[in-house]
């Protein structure tokens, strides 16, 4: 059975993604094929331990799961990119889609626009990075994009 990993630390966004999979029965993806990770660390652990066909990835992540009262450790503005880099180094065959609600990334020192980041990810990790989708809680365009990708992928 193929598996999908969703790496997301925003509760609201995570609920939306989960609902998408629940509602899109046409995708024929059983819900138990979907794994979740809330942080950079837990995503890497899961990626190393399992074979995922697809990973839907957030860009800005905390280092550790935030449900730990000690907090999520350091915030990684490019946590998603770090995961991509590691996956690339580990020669994983997972296909990654970045799902982000922001139009620009990073902070002082390294700020990238949407297009710059997409280009960088394609250039560096083109083997595993497939696309970046804009998430908006008030729009359903992102759902259409994700479904289209998954349909193509699992065709």
């Amino acid at each position, binding site marked *: 059975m193929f598996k999908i990993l969703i790496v997301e630390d925003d*509760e609201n966004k995570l609920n939306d993604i989960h609902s998408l999979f629940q509602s899109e029965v046409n995708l024929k993806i059983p819900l138990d094929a979907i794994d979740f990770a809330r942080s950079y660390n837990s995503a890497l652990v899961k990626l190393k331990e399992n074979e995922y066909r697809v990973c839907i990835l957030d860009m800005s992540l905390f280092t*550790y799961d935030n449900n730990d009262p000690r*907090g999520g*450790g350091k915030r990684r503005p*490019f946590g998603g990119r770090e995961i991509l*880099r590691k996956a690339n*180094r580990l020669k994983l065959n997972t296909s990654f889609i970045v799902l982000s609600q922001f*139009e620009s990334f990073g902070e002082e*020192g390294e700020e990238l626009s949407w297009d710059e980041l997409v280009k960088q990810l394609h250039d560096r990790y083109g083997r595993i990075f497939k696309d970046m989708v804009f998430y908006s809680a008030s729009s359903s365009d992102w759902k259409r994009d994700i479904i289209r990708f998954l349909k193509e992928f699992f065709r």
Partner: protein
Amino acid sequence: MSQKRKKNQQKRKKQYDGKATLIKNKLAQNQGLPYNLFKKWTPAELYSALEKSLTKEYFEGFFQCSYTGQSIRKLGKNRSFIPISDSHDLSLICVILKLYLPELERFESYYSSFQTSYIHGEHEKCLSALNLCNDELGYSKWLLSNEFLVIQNTKGLEKQKLLLKDLKSDQLVDFRVKSLSFFYSLKVENEISWDRYFNNYLRESIEVSKKRNQLSSSTILFYELNIGNSKSFLKKDLQAYLDQERDFSVYDLYLAFIKISLITLTKFPGSKLHKDIKQLLSVVSKHFSYNSFLYRLSILYKVSFYTMTETDEALLKSLDQYTEGNYKKTSIENTYLSNCAVHLESFELTARSMRWEKESPSIVNSINHSINSLIRKDKKLLNSYDSLLKESLKNLNTGLSYKILSLISRESGEYNTNDFIYYDLASFIFTGSFNPRILSHHNSIRIDKCSLTKFRNSTTYNLFLEHSLKDNSDVAQNIPKYRILKYKALNFFRCSKFKEAKYLFLDSLNLSRTVDRYSLLKNLAICHIKLGELNECTQLIVSECIDNEELISTFPIPLLVKHLSISDLQYSEAEAINVAILFDYYLKYFSSSKDIEENRAFAFEDFLEGSDTKRPSQIDYKKLQTEKPKLVYFLYNICTPDIMDVSVHFDTPESLLEERIKVLSVLSTINPNKEQFYRNEIQELTFDLIVDKKIVDTELGQVRINKSGVVSDISKAISDDYRRIISLKSVKHYQDDELIQYVLELMQPDNETNSLTKEILQKAKDSFLFGINGLDVNLSVDIRHGTLENILKRSLKEYKLMVLFNGEIPDFSEIDLDYLDSHQKTIFCKALTKLSSKVNLLVRYLLRKVVRAVDKSVSSNGYIYINSGSLDIIRVRNLLQSAEDLDKASNILIDYFWTKVEPCLESIRDKLNIDISNSISTVFHSTIKDLESRPELTGIKQINSLKLAHTKLSDDIKRASRWFNKASIKEVDDFDVKLASEIARRTIQNYDPTLNSINVKTSSSTKNKIAGSDLKSLTSIFEIAYTNAIQHSGLSPNEVCIDLSYKREEQFLKLKVRNNLASNTNYNELKIKIEKIKQKIGEEGNTLSIRSEKGSGIPKAFNIIKNQLRKSGEINFYIDKGEFVLELSLGVTYV
């Protein structure tokens, strides 16, 4: 001379005479210079015509220019000269220079004598040179700049600034002189480094001026060439720039002409401008003496002959000794040293020959030390580098400055760059020091016959001629083998034959015993990079720098890092340690970059993988082949929590701290010399771990009662009823299936046991929920009072999105409105006002209607309640039967109440996690949707902030919901006061993201520990004290300095918390306020406002002393020496 040539000459003379007459006539008619008539003339033709037309007197009389003898007020005010075109302008300037030749010669003699006196630290002589120059020749920019330098050196910063102030306030001084003075003053200040001057001040000023369009490009060029280090100009600005320079003195014009000519020579060789200047120099230089700047310039332009001077000869002899490897004979005669110290050659030679000569006085000495360190790359290298740059800055655009910059460029390996050539040539012009090296980048200089003979006998000179490096040449026989190899390698290097160069550099290194080693290593490193041998290069650099980090600036680390980043390789253990260290050097000394931080972390991981371990502390270091210094560096600088968190083998921040402690223990073993140093860090980290753990404990449950207090309160309240129940022996224990029977029994009015149980339940419940030690009081202090509100608003505050309200009026002072126009601001503020109001409403709802204990029979405003219906009475009655005494009965009741409260807490958690969370999401989504739908707000960063704030707020709601658990009663270890203070400090920071740091300085004479049961209360008191200092000092949080001192007096802990106050504090008002609070505490005493959340700040602390610590205590607060002081005497349990 042939007839034809003679005729031509006569013809040209006639032409010039005609042109000169034409110019004279035009000038006499006051029509300015007739550009249209001579635009096709060559600069030399115009020069000749003008030279005939203008005399100094005529020139000054007609143009009313006073190029000499100016006062500071006249400087910059020669406005009447009409510009023509750039090249022709240079002709005019050359005529002016020629006209003022005697004055310029005098000026040069003052210039040289100032320079020599300065370097010998003879400030009086410097001053005298400046004064004489002023008296005789008048003011110039050069003089003004050096006046600042001398005053700074002799009278200090204050006097120097006074001069600046005087100039600034003088209405008659030209504005450009004022602007220049600001920078003249700045560059001589001891605290202003080269980088700071150029990056923080000059560049920023110029950028701001450009943005505001305040200055024309020619004016910017004027400043860049005068107070900057610019070696470039745009041709279109040149004329206007020279036009500005003509407003000043002839001496400034002279220096500007030389600078422009030198830039042209190095940057634009072969250009039309280059040819024009060459033409002009060929006619004007013959009037100037051999030692003049202009003549030296003409040598470089190859229109005059170079003649060797005695000092040049002395230098050449020493250089030859050095080239031939006779290092003990390289010292130059004393006369050279005293007259030509500014050449710096003797210091350089001494250092390169690995000798050390007796110390010379003052500035010479300091420069000498720095050069020595720069060349030998010792442990003071970076300091020396900075101090040389500072000296160069102080003397910016003078011979000494160019000399220093030339040396630094060579030591940085920047040969053959335009900058280096510029510095080398400029130092020749302004100091007269002729190093045969100049020939290597300017090899067709015309040398007179006699000098050429001397040069031909010089090994150094011949070394610069490529053919001399052939093995069988005479020159090669005289020069040590390693130097021949080095120069051969350099030749290959320059031709990009890196493989050949690499082997020659390696051979040379094997033989070299001098300080040349570092330049060889640097070039070898570049060869490695060019050949793609990145690991070899990394190994080379790290091995050299590990013992002396000062060497880092010597190597091409940025270039190597760039190549390593592109390749993104996986490394073996031995490679990874080098790569990790190299990336760390880069981040520490060059630039910070997320990408390189990732690279460093991945190299750390590669090292672990290569060592087949999960954690650095697990590695068997005895088996490692790595050299100890590298290992120590790696463990100390790379194995830090911030870097180690890349590894999946750590799953919490705590595990990182624990690993760091283990790493430090390993370090103590392998590097015992620094054991104490590591031990100190272990101590700090252990303390951090304890603090974190305490904060985590609090996070997991904040709902509590003061159990011993509640037990005592219940015991008192139910004492009579309980004794009566005990005396009634007919109490029956009912099973659950007998409940109906019991209810019937209960309904009988004469059943005393039942009515007593009901009484007990009611009274105990009151004590548990609402008593002074009860749950609601603690809920008020720990959660309701500010804490919950803070956590629910902190994300909005952090991203500067929280609108404050003064009554109904919104206050946008805390909102980030950067880069928004007024229309965008209006829309954005309106949306945020709505958002903030809704968040406020939700918070208020939580505080008033949810997070409260309540008696349901009286009110429904609260989620925590305990029923006391029939079934509850029977359960309590049953429970009480197992109690052996009153205290146990109270404890049983408390446990029972907790079982009743737990579901209430669960409903609060649900309320937060579901209802509140959904409401918040709805509010945010509608705000974001609204803002995103407006095209005029497209791309504003504030929408991103809103999304981030929403994510964070969702997490914070979840975090807050966890507080609504019963606080675990753990055995708290006995503690030091510092622990409570630190927990408080960090807790405040956790809840208020705007506080970067809270400065608390602690001093104490006591080391007694306090019982763990007092930790919570003491922490709360510190939280109140520090929050009070931050909120009421009138200062920004970072400016607040808190001094905490404490001591033990018998069983009392005496605390004194002092904090500074803003300078505009109204002390009278503050004193009145303090008196009012004192009065309030006195009046309300024990019951002070605790039930109504009115007790804030100090009154709240007072409550904690009275009610939570339940010991006697005192509180006092007052103003002392302009500071607020809070004194507390707390009855704590010492152990």
